[in-house]
């Protein structure tokens, strides 16, 4: 059959990802960047405020304490944990690790990554607790 008789292929609509639960979950994973962008902007604003002096810094501390900002940053924390959970599961498939000719089991790699998260979190709790 020649190509001209083929049904013309329509381009995907913008809402293609609404058709299936799997695609929605994927878009949720990708959307975790949005609250994280807000968190990064907060950090940048904090550094600018620190440079501008004590008054500006106090203003930033008050801003960070406001309920809406707290909620958005808690959302960012939840988003980053969700992203980590999905990313850690994908990691052994992208970079299967081999030690002495034997490939590490996937669960061991995932567990190792979470252990890293816990270690970094504990380090920061310790550092901030001393301050």
């Amino acid at each position: 059959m020649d190509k001209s008789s083929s049904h013309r292929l329509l381009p995907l609509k913008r809402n293609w990802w609404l058709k299936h639960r799997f695609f929605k979950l994927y878009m949720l994973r990708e959307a975790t960047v949005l609250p994280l962008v807000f968190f990064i902007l907060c950090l940048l604003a904090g550094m600018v405020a620190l440079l501008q002096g004590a008054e500006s810094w106090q203003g930033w501390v008050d801003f960070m304490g406001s309920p809406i900002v707290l909620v958005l940053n808690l959302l960012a924390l939840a988003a980053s944990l969700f992203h980590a959970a999905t990313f850690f599961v994908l990691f052994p498939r992208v970079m299967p690790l081999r030690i002495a000719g034997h490939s590490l089991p996937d669960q061991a790699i995932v567990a190792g990554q979470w252990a890293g998260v816990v270690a970094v979190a504990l380090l920061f709790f310790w550092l901030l607790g001393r301050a």
Partner: protein
Amino acid sequence: MSTEQVNTNNTSTKHLSVKRYLPDNSAESYWQEYELPVDDSTSLLDALNHIKEQLDSTLSYRWSCRMAICGSCGVMVNGIPKLGCKTFLRDYEGDIRIEPLSHFPVQRDLVVDMAIFLEHLAAVKPYLIDDNPAKPYDPTAPETYQQSPEQLARYKQFANCINCGLCYSACPQFGLNPEFLGPAALTLAHRYNLDSRDHGKKQRMAELNRHEGVWSCTFVGFCSKVCPKNVDPAAAVNQGKVEAAKHTLIALFKG
């Protein structure tokens, strides 16, 4: 597959909606309804064969082996790409919508034009490229094609592809840009790159390491979900990204 006993006496009537496209009659596609008797052993391919033989001989679809090895009978079942022979109607309640595979031009009914898929497969040089001067069938050749089980294990999973094209219908990136080489072609390239007998990685990298190669993939991962042979194309494509990045870095330092 579950080990539960399949009861072939459990007959019922099920409703199948098939998306028809007959370019000789009309430029528009339309839905056609079929009622047919099924039991617990009826696969979707059995159902289509029943329609073709008993109800409506004008229906067109591809099939051959009936056992998930030829890769011909891929269709969309309720919007998800499936092999007709590996899909059982006992797993579906209510309306079952059958469409041709997404992201390919439809030729007739459930038959799609897979030319672009075949072009992408050929583009990645999916064969052993060996710079060893010994001829493969030369009896005096020094053990050219020997391979240990460990070397086989490195790529074996990625060699199970049957070219059914389900992963292309599952891939939104291929749907958005048909020039993207796509899951199966990139997996096949990776399969040969991992093969100890092959020396063609450098040649394949030219195809892989570009926007329409591995870098169009955003790891949606649905290709691996729908793959009927558990090839895990998403893993292969993303391992390909690591290889492509290494290739770029090495090229950078070599100048």
